[in-house]
């Protein structure tokens, strides 16, 4: 099986390459030039961007346990439609992915779906209950690429400290969902003017920042890397920026909704905009954008969190947190960050492929010869209005319905096979 992607703008952040060129694929790998013959598929990519396959290091695939929200197969379909060739799935399934068997089950289901690379994230503590450590080494050997109690933050600093130390020998990063439960205290949206007039309980910015500061201190003391998931406040961005200046092993990701929307999106009690961490204020959105621009935030990840229509069509307090992100991420990155000049196309691609791949320690995120041919083709000028009814995933819970996006994935190639094409 041979393929030539012709005449595209090839962006390979690993080498800094940004040029119009052809990309050759043979036997599932990126290869050196060869002559096209009858069996070669030639794809015209003129005017388009040819990038290493995008990796979303923060998704919820819901299987096992919540198959009404999403399955590994439907999540994989959403991923390739969104231009992603790899996704790292969080362990808050039922049962929790806190042991080798669940990790193996996820890998098996992903292989059956045969659509996208699925990288399981194992739980830090048993049942993600924040107490006893889970069998991290065993899970790593079974294929877990990182560890996190995402959704249930590790509140006990002693537990977090020991887990960071333990991970040092595994060479795996801990992804921290930073939320102090005592400060969040049952809040359902950002604390500010909108929570006040809507009469909804607020989650103060400090609920996130206190935990970000704690984890930075622990990373400094132990020398163990920590990755801050979905930063949402100006204070968090500033803390990570300071930590990086000091050379601490701290990294951070931001989600498209946190660099696009403010808490105003919650007005009218729109449960599609109920997400944790919550949509923040205008200054926070600006700070996340600045953090992305100056490199403080090196990863863009969606926190794709599908829910059923029934679960979301309830009183705001009762609706679950989370929104789907896989199928709108590239469009939002290009519309909000690239076309606005905040990121160059090469920087955007790096935050969506090379950087998450490096953090997870997976052999992806580059177009170097001999590597797996995971490739995403993006048309930076293509426009579309978001219509959740067209999503390949099961979730329709997006606050972006009706929003016009410019810059969309048009082809997703996984190991040399075209998995999505529009």
């Amino acid at each position: 099986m041979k393929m030539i992607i012709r005449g595209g703008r090839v962006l390979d952040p690993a080498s800094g390459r940004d040029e119009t060129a052809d990309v050759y694929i043979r036997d599932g790998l990126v290869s050196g030039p060869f002559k096209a013959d009858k069996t070669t598929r030639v794809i015209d990519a003129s005017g388009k961007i040819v990038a290493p396959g995008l990796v979303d290091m923060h998704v919820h695939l819901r299987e096992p346990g919540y198959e009404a929200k999403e399955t590994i197969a439907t999540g994989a379909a959403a991923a390739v439609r969104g231009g992603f060739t790899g996704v790292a799935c969080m362990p808050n399934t039922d049962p929790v992915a806190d042991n080798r068997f669940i990790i193996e089950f996820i890998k098996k289901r992903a292989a059956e779906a045969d659509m996208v690379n699925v990288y399981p994230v194992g739980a830090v503590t048993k049942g993600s209950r924040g107490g006893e450590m889970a069998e991290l080494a065993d899970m790593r050997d079974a294929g877990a690429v990182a560890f996190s109690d995402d959704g249930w933050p590790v509140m006990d600093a002693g537990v977090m400290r020991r887990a960071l130390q333990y991970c040092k020998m595994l060479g795996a990063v801990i992804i921290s969902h930073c939320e102090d439960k005592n400060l969040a205290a049952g809040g359902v949206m950002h604390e500010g003017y909108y929570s006040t007039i809507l009469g909804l309980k607020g989650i103060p910015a400090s609920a996130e920042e206190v935990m970000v500061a704690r984890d930075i201190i622990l990373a400094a003391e132990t020398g163990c890397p920590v990755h801050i998931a979905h930063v949402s406040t100006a204070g968090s961005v500033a803390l990570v920026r300071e930590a990086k200046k000091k050379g601490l092993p701290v990294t951070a990701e931001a989600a498209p909704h946190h660099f696009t929307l403010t808490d105003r999106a919650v007005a009218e009690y729109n449960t599609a905009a109920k997400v944790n961490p919550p949509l923040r204020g205008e200054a926070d959105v600006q700070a996340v954008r600045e953090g992305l621009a100056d490199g403080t935030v090196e990863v863009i990840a969606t926190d794709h969190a599908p829910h059923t229509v029934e679960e979301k069509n309830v009183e705001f307090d009762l609706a679950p947190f989370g929104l789907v992100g896989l199928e709108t991420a590239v469009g939002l990155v290009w519309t909000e960050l690239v076309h606005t000049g905040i990121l160059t196309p090469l920087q955007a691609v790096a935050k969506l492929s090379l950087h998450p791949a490096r953090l997870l320690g997976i052999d992806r995120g580059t177009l170097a010869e001999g590597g797996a041919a995971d490739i995403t083709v993006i048309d930076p000028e293509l426009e579309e209005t978001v219509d959740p009814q067209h999503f390949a995933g099961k979730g329709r819970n997006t606050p972006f319905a009706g929003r016009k996006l410019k810059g969309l994935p048009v082809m997703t190639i996984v190991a040399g096979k075209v998995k999505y094409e529009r």
Partner: protein
Amino acid sequence: MGGGILILFKHKDLLGLKDITAAEINFLLDTAVPMKEIISRPIKKVPTLRGRTVVNLFYENSTRTRGSFELAAKHLSADSINISSSSSSVAKGESLYDTARTIQSLGADVVILRHPMAGAAQLLAGTVEAAVINAGDGAHEHPTQALLDLFTVRERRGEIAGLRVLIVGDILHSRVARSDIWGFTKMGAEVRVCGPPTLVPPGLEETGARVYYNLEEALVDVDVVIMLRIQKERQQQGLFPGLREYARLYGLNRERLALARKDALVMHPGPVNRGVEIASDIADGPAAVIEEQVTNGVAVRMALLYLLTGGGDRHENDY
């Protein structure tokens, strides 16, 4: 309303006062004046809403608001039924959406909803064709309470614009405070709020209200004092140390009331915690208009039922 007369209240629902104009509020209050006359008659019944169905859907206990709405419907000859959360399919775990669909099928013209969660009235309004009146949703709004407060002040003072209105207590959890802030601000009053900082939500100044933490300062020269009920459970949540200290700092007594204007009105949405937020002699004294508020509540709710069902522009022979 006949041809040529502008109908100044054209909404399907009343969910809050935030999105209602001053002109609409005035129109509602004007409509409540003849309603109040009706309830002062020996036979308090007119046929205006004959054949109309009003559903009282109460997910929270309420004596005052529910009784007031029931009487308002009865005075206007509407048929009304009560559904409460403890004695219905709601208790079996039926969702608000499904309950709304059921009510829709029952053919209700008006649904009055009291619910412990903010935004519930909006969810209901988006699901049923009937007019929805928010009778209090969580800490969001309680617009009919604010309308009866406005009616009471307007009746006593003639004009609301230019008055200083102070709201004291647990602003954070109070839907009455939010509706009163919108209502009095829109009508041109200066609104002050006062309470411990742990019970005053952020961003309140953006609504136009001024925030005070010291009751003596806040009371100076005010025309209206609205005292809110403090709930003991807020103490367990660690928001204030206890009722004793609360009463010492925020209880309205004779000495403090003397700081307000001589003719100041004292209001309370009820039920009153005597000796906590308000001293008994004040609650029963000449400045208090707490019972008048209750009577006016029926009149205001009659006006609202009348306007939301078409404002009388349909007649029996139309059917």
